[in-house]
């Protein structure tokens, strides 16, 4: 196998192999649970408008009187950003649980993650829901 380095130097292939695994895992995360293309070590930065700045998290309380948006306090800002970048259902549930721990009186919660898409003709943005967890 002429393309391989000689025996004593094959460990030089370990870091590139790790890069390969990491990048493939990141693509898998994107496909499976909409991991942000800009995050996770897959080199998707500057490759799409789908990044944290154009994603948003909404928490909605569902009551008998209707629905109302629940503001996420500053102390949970890091968790909210985490949900935005990695919108797995477990993370959405974690955010709802953290909110409930602060405000036990909250009714049933729905957590949603949205991203903006831009029309290629006139750049008009629209919102697309990419993750939701209900009855939390």
């Amino acid at each position, binding site marked *: 196998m002429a393309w391989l*380095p000689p025996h*004593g*130097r094959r*460990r*030089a*292939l*370990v*870091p*590139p192999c*790790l*890069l*390969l695994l*990491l*990048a493939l895992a990141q*693509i898998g995360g*994107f496909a499976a649970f909409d*991991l*942000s*293309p*800009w*995050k*996770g*070590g*897959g*080199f*998707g*930065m*500057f*490759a*799409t*408008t*789908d990044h944290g700045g*154009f994603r*948003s998290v909404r928490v909605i309380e569902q009551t008998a009187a209707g629905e109302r948006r629940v503001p996420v306090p500053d102390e949970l800002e890091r968790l909210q*950003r*985490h949900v935005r*970048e*990695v919108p797995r259902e477990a993370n959405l549930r974690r955010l709802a649980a953290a909110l409930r721990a602060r405000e036990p009186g909250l009714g049933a919660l729905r957590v949603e993650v949205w991203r*903006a*898409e*831009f029309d*290629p003709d*006139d*750049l*008009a*943005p629209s919102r697309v829901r990419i993750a939701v967890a209900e009855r939390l």
Partner: protein
Amino acid sequence: MELALRVLLLVLLLDAPLFWFQRVPLQIVCGLGLLWPALARDARYWAGLTVLVGWPLFWNWPFSDNHDYLRALTTLAVALALTTSAPEQALRTSARLLVGGTFFFATLWKVVLSPDWIDGTFFRVTLLSDPRFHDLAVLVGGASWETLDAFDAALTDFLTGAGGWPGAFVEPAGLYSLALALTAFTALIESGIALAFLWPRLARWRNWLLIAFGATTFAFATVRGFGFLLMTLGLAQCEDDERRTRYAYVATLFLIEAYRNVPWTRLLIDALGLS
């Protein structure tokens, strides 16, 4: 290899993590390696550095940037190379494949996986909405500050839910052309670097493509740490007889630092009366 290791230590020192408890230990260890070069030739020292560079990736998950991962893989590559009988060749192999892999996946994302890059939408939106690209939009794209402010205000209102999209936005023609040119240039240079570093037949192009990338892209994309790391990896993979190329990598590294510190686009905008 000595030069590459010293430059890498300098890069780690200058582009250390944000949190003090991640930054300070790393900077102290890097400083020690610069003061005592014998330390920097020890694989155990680089293994320790790999731990210091690597653990923030877990602590900060998922917020680390791509080059933070590449930085950890680079220090690991040095640590492993120093355990071999031919460290220079081993590091050369790792560095080439790391650069090639980085650009392969960057190209894959842009050209294949992303739904809005190849048609130019990404750069059209970014030139209008990302303040890091506003000087370029004004200087080359012919955009006015009023246009940028209007788009930014409308987009902020839309994203925060404060208002709807105001209707048809008139995109300056020059900006559209600039976005398409940037898309074409980026696709060509990034795929070219991936090919040149991964396919030995194109080896003679690899250094100049990577240096050209560093000298052009980081004039506007102010991701200093990524630029530093790419130039260091380029330096590390140079052959023994490529002395001038090594200096070109170091010079480009300092150019990237100058781009960040000298407000050259703003000075140019003022000189041209575009402010």
